[in-house]
C-alpha cells in the first residue's frame, strides 16, 4: 500500500437475538456513535462512509441508501460492498484501500446484520445454484456437519473435541460484555444439546444475532496526530473459491484451498515462519465448532489432523499460548455482515489492551484475523501495535 493505514477507533453494539427497541438505522447508528466516541471524532471529520451488508438477508435492496441517517453518510462519498459472510472484513480492506489511495484520510467502515428481521434459512438456501441443488440445499449446517463427519473419520477426533470448542467460545463470551451467547456451559452440556445435523448440535453452531460494528481507519499522519494507540493494518488478503467445489468438507485434501492459500500469502508478505509464535492472538471466523479446528490446521498453528489436539491440550484458551477467539468468536455472536469486522475490531482491542475482561493475559503486539463466507471465501487481516512489529 502507498500509505500506512491505522485503525484509530471502533465500536460495536451489544449483540442479541432480539432488538425490538431499534430499527436497522438506529442499530447501525449505535455502532457508528460508539466508533466516533472511541476515536474522539465527529461525523464531520469522516471523509467517506463504507457499508457492508447482504441485501437478501433482510430483504432490503440498497440498504446503504436507507441507512444514510444512521451511518452519517448523508452528503458524503461512500459505497456498499457485499461479499457474503466475509463482507465485514472486505469493508475493512476497502477502507484501507481508500486511505492508502491518498484520496481520503479518514474512513468509516460499517458492517451489520439484523438477522431477526430477515428470513435467514430461506436466504442461505438461496446461496445454492437455482437449478442445481437449491431445492434440497442442506444449508450451512449440513455443510459443516459433513465437514464434521469427514474430520472425525479422517483424524480420529470425537464429538468431545467439538464440544470443547463450543465450551471455550461461550466461556470466553461470558467475559465479553458485547457478546450474544454468554453461556456457562460444560462439555456435557454441549454434548447433550439438541442434534441439528449429525454431528452438529445446537451448541456447535453460531447463533442468529442482531448487531453492528463500525471502525474508523486513517492515514499515518492523522493516526499519529489524533490517536494515542493506533493499530496498524499490516497485511490483507482475500481468497474466494469457485462456485461448485467446496473442498473444505474434505478435510484430508492436500490442495491449496482458500484458507491455506490466503494464509500462505499473508505469511510470505510478512515473513512469518511460525504463525503460532509470530501472532499473539487470533480472531477467526468459525460458524461451527469443526471449522475452528480446521482453521487451526489451515493457519498452520499445528500440523494436518492435529487441530483437535490443540483444543484438547487447551492451547487455544484465552490464557493459553495461542489464544484463539478470546471474544467468544462467531460461535457466540453472529450478526453476519458484522461478524468478520468484529474479528478485526476485537483483534485491535487486544492489541490496544482495551479488551477488558477478555483481554488475553500476555503482551499482544500482533494479531491475525480471518473471515468466512460465500462458497468458502476468506479475508485475512494482520494487525500490529507499531509499524516496527
Amino acid at each position, binding site marked *: 500500500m502507498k500509505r500506512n493505514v491505522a485503525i484509530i477507533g471502533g465500536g460495536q453494539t451489544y449483540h442479541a437475538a432480539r*432488538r*425490538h*427497541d*431499534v*430499527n*436497522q*438505522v*438506529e442499530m447501525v*447508528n449505535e455502532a457508528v*456513535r460508539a466508533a466516533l466516541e472511541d476515536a474522539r471524532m*465527529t*461525523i*464531520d471529520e469522516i471523509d467517506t462512509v463504507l457499508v457492508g451488508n447482504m441485501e*437478501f438477508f*433482510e*430483504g432490503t435492496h440498497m440498504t446503504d441508501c436507507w441507512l*444514510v*441517517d*444512521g451511518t*452519517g453518510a*448523508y*452528503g458524503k462519498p461512500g459505497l456498499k460492498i457485499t461479499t457474503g459472510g466475509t463482507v465485514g472484513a472486505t469493508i475493512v480492506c476497502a477502507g484501507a484501500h481508500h486511505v492508502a489511495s491518498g484520496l481520503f484520510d479518514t474512513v468509516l467502515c460499517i458492517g451489520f446484520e*439484523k438477522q*431477526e*428481521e*430477515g*428470513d435467514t434459512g*430461506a*436466504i442461505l438456501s*438461496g446461496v445454492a445454484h*437455482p*437449478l442445481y441443488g*437449491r431445492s434440497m440445499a442442506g444449508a450451512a449446517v449440513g455443510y459443516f456437519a459433513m465437514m464434521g463427519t469427514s474430520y472425525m473419520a479422517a483424524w480420529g477426533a470425537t464429538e468431545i473435541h467439538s464440544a470443547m470448542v463450543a465450551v471455550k467460545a461461550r466461556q470466553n463470551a461470558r467475559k465479553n460484555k458485547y457478546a450474544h451467547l454468554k453461556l456457562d456451559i460444560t462439555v456435557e452440556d454441549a454434548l447433550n444439546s439438541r442434534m441439528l445435523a449429525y454431528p452438529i448440535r445446537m451448541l456447535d453452531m453460531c447463533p442468529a444475532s442482531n448487531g453492528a460494528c463500525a471502525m474508523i481507519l486513517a492515514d499515518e499522519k492523522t493516526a499519529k496526530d489524533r490517536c494515542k494507540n493506533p493499530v496498524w493494518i499490516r497485511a490483507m488478503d482475500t481468497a474466494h473459491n469457485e462456485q461448485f467445489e467446496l473442498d473444505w468438507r474434505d478435510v484430508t485434501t492436500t490442495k491449496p484451498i482458500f484458507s491455506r492459500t490466503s494464509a500462505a500469502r499473508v505469511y510470505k508478505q510478512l515473513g512469518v515462519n511460525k504463525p503460532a509464535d509470530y501472532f499473539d492472538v487470533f480472531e477467526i471466523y468459525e460458524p461451527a465448532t469443526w471449522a475452528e479446528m480446521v482453521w487451526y490446521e489451515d493457519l498452520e498453528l499445528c500440523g494436518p489432523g492435529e487441530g483437535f489436539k490443540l483444543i484438547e491440550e487447551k492451547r487455544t484458551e484465552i490464557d493459553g499460548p495461542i489464544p484463539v477467539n478470546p471474544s467468544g468468536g462467531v460461535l457466540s455472536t453472529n450478526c453476519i455482515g458484522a461478524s468478520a469486522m468484529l474479528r478485526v475490531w476485537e483483534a485491535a482491542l487486544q492489541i490496544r489492551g482495551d479488551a477488558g475482561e477478555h483481554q488475553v493475559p500476555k503482551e499482544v503486539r500482533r494479531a491475525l484475523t480471518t473471515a468466512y463466507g460465500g462458497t468458502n471465501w476468506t479475508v485475512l487481516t494482520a494487525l500490529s501495535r507499531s509499524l516496527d512489529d
Partner: protein
Amino acid sequence: MSEDRDYEIFEVDQHIVAHSKYYAGRMGSRFYLTLRDEKKILGIRCANCERVYWPPRSTCGRCFSQLSEDKMVEIGPRGTVETFTLVTYSEPVHPRKSPFIYGIIRLDGADTSIVHFIDEVEFEKVQIGMRVRPVFAETRNGNILDITHFRPL
C-alpha cells in the same frame, strides 16, 4: 455462442420467498401507536437544526444530532401536495388497484414530507399546492396503511 448450442433453451420458473419482519424501534413504535390509537401523526424536531422531520427518526441526517422521543411533535394532519403521479399499471406489491394516485405531501408544521395515496379526487383535478387531509382506516394495525389516503379539503 452458437457452436456450443446443441440443446434446447432451458428455463425454470422459481420464486424466492422471504418472510421479513421489520421493527420500527421505540420512536417508530410511538409514531404507529399514536397513529393507530389516536389517529394523530407525529414528527420529530431536531433541537439543533430546528427541522421537524417526518418520518420520525433518532438521528438528524443533516446535523447528526441524536433526537429524543420527548421532541416528538404532532404535525398536520392537513398538508399541501408537493408532487403527484397517476400510476396506470398493476403490481402484486401494490396495496390497491390501479389506476391510483401517489402524492408527496408536506404536512403542516413539518419540514419534510410524506408519500402516500391521494384519492377521492380525479387525477385531472389534482394540483401541486392543493390542500389535503388524511383519511384514516377503520381498522388500524400499526402500519402506514392506517392512513388509507389523503383527500382534498
